[in-house]
Every structure is written in C-alpha cells, then in structure tokens.
C-alpha cells in the first residue's frame, strides 16, 4: 500500500530544492529569512535521522517569533519582497512539520512560486536558466516522492523530469508568443524592492561623480532612429541642481510642468533610451527633450523627464529632442531668485573674483568667455584624484588646489556665475557614450557620468555651458578613458586599449541588448508585429487569442502523437530486428518473405529465384536460425550477424 510518511531522503531532496530556490532571493531578502529556513530544514533533517518529527509546539513558537519579526521589518505583507519573505518562512515552517507526502506537495508549490517571485525582480538570462534548473530538480524530486513502492533512482528521475520539461517547451513557446499582454499593471503593488539606487543622485558634492567614473556599469543604452548628434551635443539630461550651500549642490524643487516651452532650433533627433533600473525617478533624455512615450512621466520645470515611481524595471522610452533651444520669455521672479541664490558668507574670494569680472565685462557672454578662458589658460587640471575640499569648496578649488573633475568645474562655474548676477544651475547626467558597432546603439556607462552648467541669458533662455570642455575638450569629444592621465585609476583604460577585449565586451553587450529587446520588452506591440509577420490582416487582441487557440491545438496534437509514439511496441530482440531488416532488404529487391515462411524455407526460395544471392542469403538465414534457436555457442555472434546484414545490399534483379 501507499506509504504516506516521508523518508529522510525525500526530506533531504525537497530541502535542497527549497534552499536552491531561495538562493535566487539571497540579494533581496534580509539575510535572516533564508537563515531561518535553512535552520528549519536542518532541524527537520536531524529529527528525521532518528525517525521522529518535531512537536507542534516548537512549530508554533517559531511561527509566533518569526511572523511578527517579518512584519516589523517590512510593515506590510503586500509587497513583493515581504510576500516572498513570508512565503519562504512558511515553507521553512512547513518543512519543520512535514510528516506526509501532502506536506511535501505544499512545499513544491511554494518552491515554484518563490521561483516566479525571483523572476519578477531579476531579469537576467542566467536567473531564468537557473530557476528552470531548480524547477527541473524539484519536479524530479516530486516524482520520487509520489511514486509508491520503489522510487526510480535519481538519474532516471532527472531524465524523466527533463523529458517532461523538453516536451513542455514548444507549448510554452506558443503561450509566451501569443498569450495577450496588457499595457499596464492590473493593479498597483507597492514597490518594496531592496535594490539600492545606483548612478547619479540628486545631490552633488565635489568628488561624487569621481566615484561613478570608476564604474563601467551600464546606465542606459540609446538607439538613434537616424544619425546620432555629434559628441559635443550628446548631453543626457538628469537631475538639475539649483541650490548651493557652498559645498553641495542639491535640488530645491520637484515642480512638474510649468516650464516655459522652449523653442526648438535645428533638427529633432528621434531615439529610444533603454534605461536600466536605477531606483530613481528620472529618465535620461537627450538634452533637451521634446516628446516621450512613457505614461506617468512628465518634464519637471527644469526639463528633466521624471516619472511618478522610482524606476525599478528596465524600460524603453522613445522620444525626440532638440540639441539647441531658445526661449524669449523672461525668467520668473521666483526662479530667478532661486538661481541666483548663494550661501551667506561662503566662498568670499569667489565673490570678489566675480565682482572683478562683472566690472570688466558688462556683457554676460563675454563674462562667460572670460571665465572659460581662465580655466583654459591658467594652471587648472582635469583629474580623477582631486584633493579633498572643505566648506568653502569653490574658493579652495579656484584659488588653491585647481585640480578637479567635471563636478568641481561645474560647481565653481555656476557659483561664479551666480556671484556675478547671472542665473545659473548645475545639470548632472551623462555625456558622450560608446557606439556598439555590432548593434548600432550607444552604451552609456557610469563612467560617462558628467556635470555641466546652464546659465540664463536674457532673450536667449537657458544655455548650456560645459566648463569641462574648456579645460579638457577631449573629455567631451572622446570620453573619459582617453582624457585622464595614464597613472590615474580608471577602470576602462587597459580594457579599451585591448581591442579583442573591447570587441568581446561589445558583442556580449549586444547579446544582453537583444535579450532585453526581444525577451524582456516583448509586449502588445511586438505581438502585433508578430501577427503582421504571419500575414494576419488587421491584427488585434481577438485574432491573437484565435491564433493562440490554433497554436495550442497544433502543439497539443503533436504532443499527443509524441507521447503515444513511445508506446509503440518495439522488439527488444536484436536478432529478430536484424532479421526483419534483412527481410525488408530482400523485399525491396523484389523477394518479400511470405507470412508462413521460416528462415530456412525463405532462404531456399530466394536461392532458387536468385542464384546470385543464394550463397549470402542461405548463410545469413542459417546464422539467424542458429542465433535464435541454437545454443549460444553458435559459430557467429550477434554483432557479426548485425554487421553482415548491414553490409548485405541485394540489387534488384535485372531482366536481361
């Protein structure tokens, strides 16, 4: 009869699968959640050694301790991470109380669901492959648990599970391609992701961007519809910082809308930004953005595209930008006050310098030119390792250290402008980028992070001034790697010098990009294109469902055939099979065996009809008879017989 109690081995198998599934969550869950589950598993296994099970009281105590702890940590069970944590702990507790097969069934279901939860957060190919592996292992374990009596061994279980998985693939593909996708979420779920924000932040102290410059992590990728703008115009706009305390630039307002519409000059660039999730709300658009197709996103009044939620998933935004704009409208009173604001009593030397410059140059543009040529002509250095600066950072930088990175120059320049009475602000973002020639798109890495300034010129509007271009024009033209000195710490220098490495890296990036574009971003629009490719007229959701039905019917039909085909009896008798082959060869030569003929009779008849074959056929048939009916000490082995039949190729008789 069925033994319902679980064995040590079954427990070990299912605990292992659970641990492997939780491994996919190890970066997002608080460390103690997997620790509790592992502890539960080990405890249960220890009990199982002696054939016992822990008492219910232990279980209740653990549950009463852990569940409030979870709630304290997350304040909700509704979010993805909190839900996963709760589910994991539930699996651990279930493991602790596992006595019968039914308990193991529940755990397998939790394993499957936890795997999906991991895929809701992560998006790499390897994660998917890993979790399919976990699913495979779990299913094989399940086969061993459900089987009554002698369970099939591990190798056979894995092979069987693998076969089921392989047979499921075509159907899964049909589902995946044709199951209708929706445009938006069905309902909102709070984002409780533990992923740390990456990339630029909305404050800038001297030295901040220097850290980013050391990372070659991809921030986003861009594909231009037509030609890309020249390097000197590829500024990707991020948070705009308009409040300065003498050391740190911050962002004073988050006002959406209300920005005076800039009047575009020159050509519009159409492109798609493929953002990596960075847990901030802004999207990097080419300076200055005009249109975008992201719902729930709008331009702030300083022209940064911002969405309502932090970006926790990769997203594509297609939009247009103009690299030059003009605005004849005056700057609002409040904005003007804000963009001239200076901290009291800080950076006094800068104040004096600004006043000197102001009295020398009445025209704003002339003053800008004077400051830029000061940067260019005096002993200012562009370096990744600038000295540390204190509260009067601009004074120290302009008059003492004179060594800095883009942030230092932008900060000092904006402070100087403000002191001279020109509204100015710091813009952070990315500049330049690397073209991936294999995929014809641009890669913007963290090392492309940049800071520049914008000043307000009456009658012209906001105007971009990049002081870094004055001190290190090659930074803007060629990127960081070619700019910094050889003895500076930079990640990508030796890499960019090694051609094969760069090539391999760009190819890998292309693969990642294809994965993203084809798999991660497969949506309604892609499905419509698929239908168009299949020549479905006027593709819509209804036709998609019909096609899904047709596809499913086809694949299920194939599956039925495939599964039943394995049922067809096939003789295990090699001698008989080989003899059958001999007969079919002779039949092809016009000498079919009659139903009632034994091997010897057949051979006699063939010999009579075709004397040319007589010798061979008589010998083969005699071999067959001796293999089938005589003692194993026959004069020919099975292998020899097989080889002889394989070599036997009777020709059709020529009537001549």
């Amino acid at each position, binding site marked *: *009869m*069925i033994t319902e109690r679980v064995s040590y081995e079954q427990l070990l198998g299912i605990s292992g699968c659970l641990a492997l599934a939780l491994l996919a969550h190890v970066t997002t869950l608080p460390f103690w959640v997997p620790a509790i589950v592992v502890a539960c598993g080990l405890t249960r296994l220890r009990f199982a050694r002696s054939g016992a099970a822990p008492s219910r009281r232990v279980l209740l105590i653990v549950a009463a301790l852990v569940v409030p702890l979870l709630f304290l940590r997350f304040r909700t069970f509704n979010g993805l991470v909190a839900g996963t944590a709760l589910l994991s702990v539930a699996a651990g507790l279930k493991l602790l109380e596992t006595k019968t097969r039914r308990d193991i*069934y529940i755990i397998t*279901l939790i394993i*499957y*669901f936890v*795997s*999906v*939860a991991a*895929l*809701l957060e992560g*998006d790499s190919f390897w*994660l*998917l492959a890993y*979790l*399919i592996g976990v*699913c495979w292992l779990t*299913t094989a374990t*399940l*086969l061993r*648990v*459900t*089987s*009554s*009596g*002698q369970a*099939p061994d591990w190798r056979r279980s894995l092979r*069987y599970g693998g076969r*089921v*998985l392989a*047979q*499921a*693939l*075509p*159907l*899964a593909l049909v589902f*995946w391609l044709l*199951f209708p*996708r*929706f445009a*938006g*979420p*069905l*309902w909102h*779920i709070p984002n409780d992701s533990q992923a740390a924000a990456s990339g630029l932040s909305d404050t800038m102290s001297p030295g901040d961007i220097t850290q980013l410059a050391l990372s070659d992590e991809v921030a986003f990728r861009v594909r231009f519809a037509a030609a890309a703008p020249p390097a000197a115009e590829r500024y990707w706009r991020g948070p705009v910082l308009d409040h300065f305390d003498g050391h740190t630039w911050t962002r004073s307002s988050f006002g959406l809308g209300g920005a005076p519409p800039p009047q575009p000059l020159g050509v519009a660039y159409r492109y798609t930004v493929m953002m990596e999730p960075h847990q901030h709300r802004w999207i990097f658009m080419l300076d200055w953005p005009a249109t975008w197709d992201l719902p729930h996103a709008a331009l702030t009044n300083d022209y940064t595209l911002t969405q309502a939620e932090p970006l926790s*998933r990769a997203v594509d935004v297609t939009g247009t930008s103009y690299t030059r704009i003009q605005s004849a409208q005056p700057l609002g009173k409040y904005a003007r006050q804000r963009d001239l604001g200076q901290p009291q009593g800080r950076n006094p030397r800068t104040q004096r310098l600004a006043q000197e410059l102001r009295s020398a140059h009445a025209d704003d543009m002339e003053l800008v030119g004077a400051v830029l040529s000061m940067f260019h002509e005096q002993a200012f250095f562009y370096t990744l390792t600038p000295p540390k600066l204190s509260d009067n950072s601009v004074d120290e930088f302009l008059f003492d250290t004179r060594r800095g990175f883009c942030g230092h120059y932008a900060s000092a320049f904006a402070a100087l402008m403000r002191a001279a009475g020109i509204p100015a602000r710091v813009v952070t973002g990315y500049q330049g980028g690397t073209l991936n020639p294999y995929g014809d798109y641009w890669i913007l890495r963290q090392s492309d992070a940049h800071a520049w300034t914008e000043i307000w010129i009456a009658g012209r509007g906001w105007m971009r001034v990049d002081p870094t271009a004055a001190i290190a024009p090659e930074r803007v033209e060629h990127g960081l790697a070619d700019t910094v000195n050889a003895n500076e710490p930079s990640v990508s220098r030796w890499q960019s010098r090694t051609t094969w490495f760069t090539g391999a890296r760009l190819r890998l990036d292309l693969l990642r990009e294809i994965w993203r574009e084809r*798999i*991660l*971003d*497969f*949506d309604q629009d892609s499905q419509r294109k698929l239908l168009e490719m299949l020549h479905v007229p006027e593709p819509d959701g209804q036709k998609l469902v019909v096609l899904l039905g047709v596809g499913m019917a086809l694949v299920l039909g194939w*599956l*039925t055939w495939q*599964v*039943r085909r*394995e*049922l*067809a*009896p096939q003789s*295990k008798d090699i001698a008989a099979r080989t003899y059958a082959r001999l007969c079919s060869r002779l039949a092809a030569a016009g000498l079919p065996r009659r139903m009632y003929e034994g091997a010897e009779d057949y051979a006699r008849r063939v010999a009579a009809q075709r004397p040319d074959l007589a010798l061979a056929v008589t010998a083969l048939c005699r071999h067959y008879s001796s293999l089938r009916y005589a003692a194993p000490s026959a004069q020919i082995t099975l292998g020899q017989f097989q080889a002889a039949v394989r070599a036997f190729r009777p020709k059709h008789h020529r009537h001549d």
Partner: protein
Amino acid sequence: MSTLRQAAINKLRARVIRRHGRDSLPISINRRRIYILPTRFGIMLGAILAAMLIAGLNYNSNLALAFAFLMTSMALVTMHHCNRNLLRLSVDVTTEVDAFAGREAMFEFELRNASNVDRRDIEVRCLSAAGMGSVPAGESASIEVIGTVRQRGVTRVDQFELRTRYPFGWFYSWTYVQGPITIYVAPAPAGTRTLPSEGAKGTGTHSEARGDEDFSGLRAYEPGVPLKHMAWKVLARGGEAAVRSYSSLAAQPEWLEWSALDGLALEARLSQLCLWVLESDAAQRPYGLRIPGKEIAPSGGAAHRFACLRALAAFGIGESGETGSP
C-alpha cells in the same frame, strides 16, 4: 461537495456500463475509456499557476510569464503522461474468486505492458479495496487486491477500476473495466459439532480407513485429484493419466449431511458444514455433501473442495450483482 462528486462518478460509471457493455477479458485499455481529472494537489497547482500568471502580467515581467507558461505546459504534458500510463495496458483477472464471509478475498489482476514505456504506480480498485503495482516495459505483472465480503452468498463485482496518479500526482486518470468477477463467499467456517464419522468412531467399523499407505491399485484420472496421488511413472512411460488409489480413498466416504444438523439455525448449519468440509479436506478423506437441492458425490482434492464450498455459498440464494463499489 463530496456527495456531488460521488453522484457524478456513479452517473459516469453507469454510463460506462451502458456504453461499453461487458468487456471480454483480457482487454486492452483504449483511449476512449480513460478519464482524467486533477487531484487536489493538481487543483492547488492550478491556483498557483494562475497566481504566477497574474503576477507576471501585473509586473509586466516576461520572464515570470515564461516560467509560468513553462509550468503550465509541464502540467499539460503531465496530463498526457498520466493518461498514457494506462493506455494500451492489457488487463486480465481471474473471474471466479472464492472467499469466506468476513475474511479476506484476494483478487489477482494480471497487467501486461507490451509497450516500450514503464507503467508505474497503477492502482487497481475492486470491492472498496485497492492494490498497487508497476509494470515494466514489455513485461507483465500481477497486482493483488485484498478485499473483504461480509455476506455469505454469490456476489458479482461488475466493474473494477484502474487508476493512476503517475507521474507527479497532479492528475489522476482512471478507467472502468466491466469484467464481472464472481465471488463465491462461503459461510465462515464455524461450529462445535464433530464430524459424523468421529462420532461413530467407537463402533470401529473402519478403523483401517486412515492413512495413505495402503496402495490398492490404479484408477482413471479425473480432475480434482490431489497431485501427489497422480501416477507420474505411468504417465512418464507414455501411458494414460492414472491415479494411485489407496484403501483409505476407496474406503467408506464421509457424508456431510444437512439433515445431521437439526436444531441449528440456517447460517450456523452452513458454517458447520463448511468447517466439516475443511476438516475432511485437511484429513484427506473422501467426503460428499448433501444439502437440500444439491448433492455432491464423495471425492477429494481442491476442485472438489471448491465445489462443496460454492454449493454452500450459493445455498438458498441466487446470484446477486454488486455494482456499487469498485
């Protein structure tokens, strides 16, 4: 809920009987008679799959959807595998089973698997009892089902069921086979009366009747004779099948008489007669059975014993069909 399910199953079983009628055994199970439903575990899996799907759609996560679709497809493949586990399995069963009331009745099912695929975890259900077994590819296996019948009589089981939850326990597929099995349920052997001959022993009429040693010649073979009494040497020499005859067998037979048990209730009488049959059989002495409406001439051996027990089982009642519970 469960009564509803039971009602549905009863309806299905009645329909199966109407549709297929009696099956001639052995029968090869074809796809038209295999039914399949998710188990409770399977329903839970379905709920989890739905949750996966909704989560994937809600988060717009193509990878989660891919995983959910893969799992769903695996479930559908599993459905085919579960169905296949019974498909083209050849089933046979001994159509006549002897048992004693209130004791175990053993049904032996012979499953043949001519295919290339192992059939694992096949459950045979018959008479509210179940047996489990596997049939490797290209082999046969017999599965024993041990059930109990309380009532003396001749019971017919019209239908038995083959069922499997292989491979993952998400689905169970089953089939009904209308191979009637007749169960001869002899009365439970019981009673306190001694054999009639034991009672008459004191008179010493045939004291030498015991023992098999007194060989008294050969007689023609007839079915039901104990194998050890066969004259093998004669058969080996090419002669006719013959049985060695012993003086004890030739001796005066024991008559087990209904009329000797006056004063007992009907079932008690039958139980006593049943006990006597078994005792006489164990003592290897010829015995005959005489009950109202039936007389079985004295003889010995298993076939004779079964004939007597079946006569006792059938006494006073016709055959009754039991269709309610495989």
